[in-house]
């Protein structure tokens, strides 16, 4: 147990935190609910063709973050993607397209980055943490699969709402009440997403990213423009937060066609007839930018063990850069003692 840290959530924040702790010689284990690493930084494969499902590109200004992206082994970097942006609507992250931000993508999909971060880590996939409690000199984590993990420090690096749900399993009076109340004032933003595949050649949008002035669509990304010799033209349609929130609990068969219709209104009737579609429900796509904290949280318990919180809420700036920085900062803070 000495110096052993349990990290819950294999998103960019949790992986960067674990990577730094491990590099400094600490024992780490990362517990992840889904079958893959990366959290929101997700890429799916359709007949071998990668499609980004969450963020469409990396953007940021932090030299450390940009350097970390540069170290991804085997990643084919697409500098300054998206180059062709159309539409007058602001992007999800207001400064993403500013000239001061660096932008890039990977031909293999953005998920190459979290996979790279996870390369040397002990990550337990499909492991759902259901409860946490402080022990005499550490923490105990119980999972839905029946396994129990014990460590000295514990890091929660998940979506805000999932973090809150786990904090609620702590016994009363353990000192996290003010943090729970604070986080209770915050919320994440949902996004319903539809990926549509079309034959190559018939229609090719002249842009990489479309930001329509639509009440339904936040963006349409020309995902196949990122791929080498794509088999399909792939478009990723992401819905606006407000539109998404009211349809979040509806079955996909109800909202997916609506999203396609909205895309067709922008692109033409051909867009109504994809060869295949794939819907995805991002319940907690990203932090609401009015809900940002200055730094990762550390709650010290009676015997000096620390419960740390990381994720895009816990560093200003939003996006994958904020998630990465929060994980990095929390790790440095834990290592400093």
């Amino acid at each position: 147990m000495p110096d052993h840290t349990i990290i819950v959530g294999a998103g960019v924040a949790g992986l960067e935190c674990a990577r730094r702790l491990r590099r400094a010689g600490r024992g780490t284990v990362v517990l992840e609910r889904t079958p893959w690493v990366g959290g929101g930084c997700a890429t799916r494969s359709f007949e071998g063709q990668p499609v980004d499902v969450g963020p469409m590109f990396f953007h940021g200004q932090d030299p450390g973050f940009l350097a970390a992206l540069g170290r991804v082994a085997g990643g084919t970097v697409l500098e300054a993607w998206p180059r062709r942006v159309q539409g007058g609507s602001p992007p999800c992250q207001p400064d993403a397209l500013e000239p001061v931000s660096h932008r890039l993508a990977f031909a293999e999909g953005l998920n190459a980055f979290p996979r790279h971060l996870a390369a040397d880590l002990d990550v337990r996939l499909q492991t759902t943490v259901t409860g946490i409690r402080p022990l005499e000199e550490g923490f105990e984590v119980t999972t839905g699969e029946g396994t129990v993990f014990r460590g000295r420090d514990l890091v929660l690096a998940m979506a805000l709402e999932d973090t809150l749900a786990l904090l609620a399993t702590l016994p009363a009076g353990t000192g996290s009440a003010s943090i729970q109340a604070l986080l209770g004032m915050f919320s994440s933003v949902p996004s319903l997403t539809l990926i549509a595949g079309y034959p190559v050649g018939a229609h090719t949008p002249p842009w990489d990213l479309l930001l329509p002035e639509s009440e339904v669509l936040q963006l349409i990304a020309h995902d196949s423009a990122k791929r080498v010799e794509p088999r399909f033209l792939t478009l990723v349609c992401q819905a606006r937060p407000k539109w998404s929130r009211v349809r979040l609990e509806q079955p996909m068969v109800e909202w997916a066609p609506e999203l396609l219709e909205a895309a067709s209104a922008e692109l033409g009737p051909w867009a109504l007839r994809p060869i295949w579609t794939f819907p995805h429900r991002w319940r907690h796509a990203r932090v609401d930018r009015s809900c940002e904290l200055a730094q990762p949280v550390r709650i010290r318990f009676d015997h000096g063990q620390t419960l740390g919180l990381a994720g895009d809420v816990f560093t200003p700036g939003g996006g994958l850069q904020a998630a990465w920085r929060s994980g990095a900062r929390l790790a440095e803070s834990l290592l400093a003692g």
Partner: protein
Amino acid sequence: MSIMDDKLNALVERDREHECQGFGTDHVCVRIVAVAKLPSRFGDFRIVAFWNNRDQKDHIAIVHGDVIGFEDVPTRMHSECLTGDVIGSLRCDCRDQLETALKRIGELERGVVLYLRQEGRGIGLANKIRAYALQDRGLDTVEANLALGFRDDERDYAVAAHMLHSLGLASVQLMTNNPDKIGQLQQYGVKVSSRLPHLLPPNAHNRFYLETKAKRSGHFIDFSGMPHLQEQSDPVVVDGMSEL
């Protein structure tokens, strides 16, 4: 226009192309960009506007008398507090701290108030109000305040040090009840010749400080049961109270 105005305006000209390594780990660099007269109810001042390379905040110096090149210039650092400074909030003592500084300096031969636009000491107004909301629910907000960004003074000192350097003060007498501030400023090359305690005159709103046993933790509950936040990086000392 007096000689003093000419001297201050010359600083605007001097700083037009100013670039330096910057102060502190953030390499904060500031330039004096505009100077004007500012007669106020607290005395005759000049207001000096600064640009900085780190954020979009326009920090200012409120200058009384001839300060350029002088030793022992009485100087006060104040962090912006909209609720206290402007609205007269009684959740903090910022208004009293600012007014007292301006009045005292206005009565002296010379002096400077640095008004740092770091609302709630960098926390931002919305987050400061979130901290208030937590207090309203009776929560102890130590960790929450940290998360909200409540105690990150390093940049304040770097900015303040560069501002004092730009104003060309030979040395300062720092008006503070926080002796740590002296060392912090000295780290950035500011010559601090002495410290002047910053004593607030007692009034109906701060009298409870005299009647509460002063605690080093700085935890004070006022007569209406409201905890006062130490929003300046400087403990409140009301005249007649033993210094912390």
